[in-house]
């Protein structure tokens, strides 16, 4: 099946006082139709930049953008601003991390919802749009939806605002929904409500979702596929259970070891020695080599390609076969 989105050789650079910052260093990624793709990585790994590329809401200080983002046969990076704008809020929608600032404080919930609907379906009568907006609010678990249409954002709690954001995104029925850490700003029990809502919605939603998170447990629960980013590159991708169950890249393995998971107290806590890569560095070696416990001289000689690592899996490590064999032996005996 052809993927909905094919990203090839995507590079993003910005000019800073310290030199050229390489924000994305050549990304190759497919997003399957009706799949939920989790994107994980630490701060500075480029995961949010990747999402903003997909809607082309890029910061103004970029000095270089290259590569292609083919969305349903059209290269988004080659489009003019007007043509790109026709995709935003119609075929591509986004849920932002902070529901406090993503809604306009001067407009009611109803205005937000009706506006996105009439943008998607110009000519839809106002009362039809209002009816659908109320139904959407109910479907995301907002009680008294008809009354809430008249509320302003400041009158809603954080959880309610994020529900409104999700309702807005779903009303559009986008082919691609981008969710950038949609639960990070919420409290634990409210986060659980939103996650459970997203799980329910994935059954009725036909589009693809890119779910950006730093929470591996959440991604494991919600997503079909996983893409692990580090220092502006993708180091590993594949079906989520396989990637987390038997990681092919040492960075994925190290991240899982740091996760603490639900183990009880005991022993030392794991960390990854060293520091995250500097975006200004020019790179001609494996991005993770300076912190990798398996790095050998060959890892420092050239940038490893993202290559096949099992069915539907990719990893950017020249040693994954040997390391996987060793891990297998360790588990088997």
């Amino acid at each position, binding site marked *: 099946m052809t993927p909905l989105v094919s990203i090839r050789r995507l590079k993003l650079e910005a000019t800073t006082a310290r030199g050229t910052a390489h924000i994305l260093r050549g990304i190759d990624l497919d997003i399957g139709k009706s799949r939920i793709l989790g994107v994980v990585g630490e701060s500075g790994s480029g995961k949010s930049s990747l999402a903003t590329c997909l809607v082309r809401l890029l910061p103004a200080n970029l000095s270089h953008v290259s590569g292609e983002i083919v969305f349903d046969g059209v290269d988004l990076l080659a489009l003019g601003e007007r043509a790109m704008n026709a995709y935003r809020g119609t075929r591509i929608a986004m849920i932002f991390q902070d529901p406090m600032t993503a809604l306009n404080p001067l407009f009611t919930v109803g205005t937000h919802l009706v506006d996105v609907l009439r943008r998607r379906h110009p000519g839809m009568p106002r009362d039809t749009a209002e009816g659908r907006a109320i139904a959407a609010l109910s479907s995301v678990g907002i009680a008294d939806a008809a009354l809430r249409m008249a509320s302003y954002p400041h009158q809603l709690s954080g959880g309610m605002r994020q529900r409104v954001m999700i309702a807005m995104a779903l009303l559009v029925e986008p082919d691609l929904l981008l969710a950038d850490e949609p639960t990070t700003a919420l409290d634990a029990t409210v986060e659980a409500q939103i996650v459970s809502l997203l799980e329910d919605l994935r059954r009725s939603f036909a589009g693809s979702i890119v779910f950006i998170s730093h929470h591996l447990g959440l991604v494991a629960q919600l997503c079909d596929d996983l893409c692990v980013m580090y220092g502006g590159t993708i180091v590993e991708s594949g079906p989520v259970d396989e990637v987390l169950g038997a990681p092919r890249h040492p960075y994925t393995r190290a991240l899982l070891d740091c996760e603490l998971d639900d183990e009880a107290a005991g022993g*030392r806590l794991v960390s990854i020695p060293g*520091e995250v890569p500097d975006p200004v560095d020019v790179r001609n070696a494996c991005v993770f080599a300076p912190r990798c416990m398996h790095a050998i001289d060959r890892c420092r000689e050239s940038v490893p390609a993202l290559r096949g690592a099992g069915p539907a899996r990719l990893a950017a490590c020249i040693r994954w076969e040997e390391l996987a064999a060793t891990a297998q032996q360790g588990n088997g005996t």
Partner: protein
Amino acid sequence: MSAVGPLQGARLSGERDAQRPSGASTSTASPGAALVELAGVSVVFDGRVRALDDVTLAIGKGEIVGLVGESGSGKSTLCRVIMGLTPPSSGTVKVGDRPVGEQLAQAPLAFRRRAQLLLQDAVASLSPRMTIGRTLEEPIAIHALPRAETLTQLAAILQRLGLSEDVLAKFPHQISGGQARRVGVARALLMRPEIIVADEPTAGLDVSVQGDLLNLLLDLQRELGLTYLLVSHNLNVIRRVTGRTAVMYLGQIVEEAATHDLFGRPAHPYSAALLSTNPAVDPRKRVQPIVLQGEIPSPVNPPSGCRFHTRCPVAQPRCSTDPPLLLPLDGQRHVRCHFPFSLDRRRH
């Protein structure tokens, strides 16, 4: 500021005790040796916001106690009460046998040395107009510490924390979040405190470095006999690091138990729901999350009876009228619920 001398009265010996389970040493502290004691503490703001309501908690010397709960549950107010930054409206707060208010009135500087706070936003807790060196040397004048000796100690602490001396010449905006955290820890340790109250010490840290900071806090606790109150949203951190945990909801402690027991089988329905919201990476370990309805009510007008009854999946008629007390259960834990263990977690 060049010689690295030993830290007097406190050996900082690195990897010693590496095999010892981190939480085990802390759960055995006898209640008789409490360093911090809160009895019936309430804090009312503006005469109507009950930020803390009848909080009773003892922290033994050398213990690591965790504090969990959602925003608005009173965690930060509890930290501020222990630090003497917010006076209790009623009840008593003691640190080391004497009320905090009395110590602050008689010898404020001595009390400030005794209890140190690690603030949640480490970068913002450092003055943007002072170099790290000036910030760290400021207490020498304020507390009239012997200068040469303290600077020698500071060098030893910096080395122990893995901070190079270059950092002293920098301003807060020139260092990383992880470095700012460690500067905060250095500033606290220089006072040789008895208790450190750490408000979200790993918030905003990447997972690859959070283990470093927690290992450091654990090493220091063992080497210096420190006592910690650790506030965190990260349940995995609480589970790994603390010996005992208190769960707060709407200004009250609803359950307090050995961390192992609490995570193994929470007694209060709110604890059960909160702990179930933490999805595990391993599908075999995943539990069905208990999804609560609604959101935490306003402390201005808290629900009658049990404060949790409006969201409790197993509430009974009695819960809406009859406020439960924080009572001992099985001699191991304290629970504020008429029907403990009524909400059990189910595995997938």
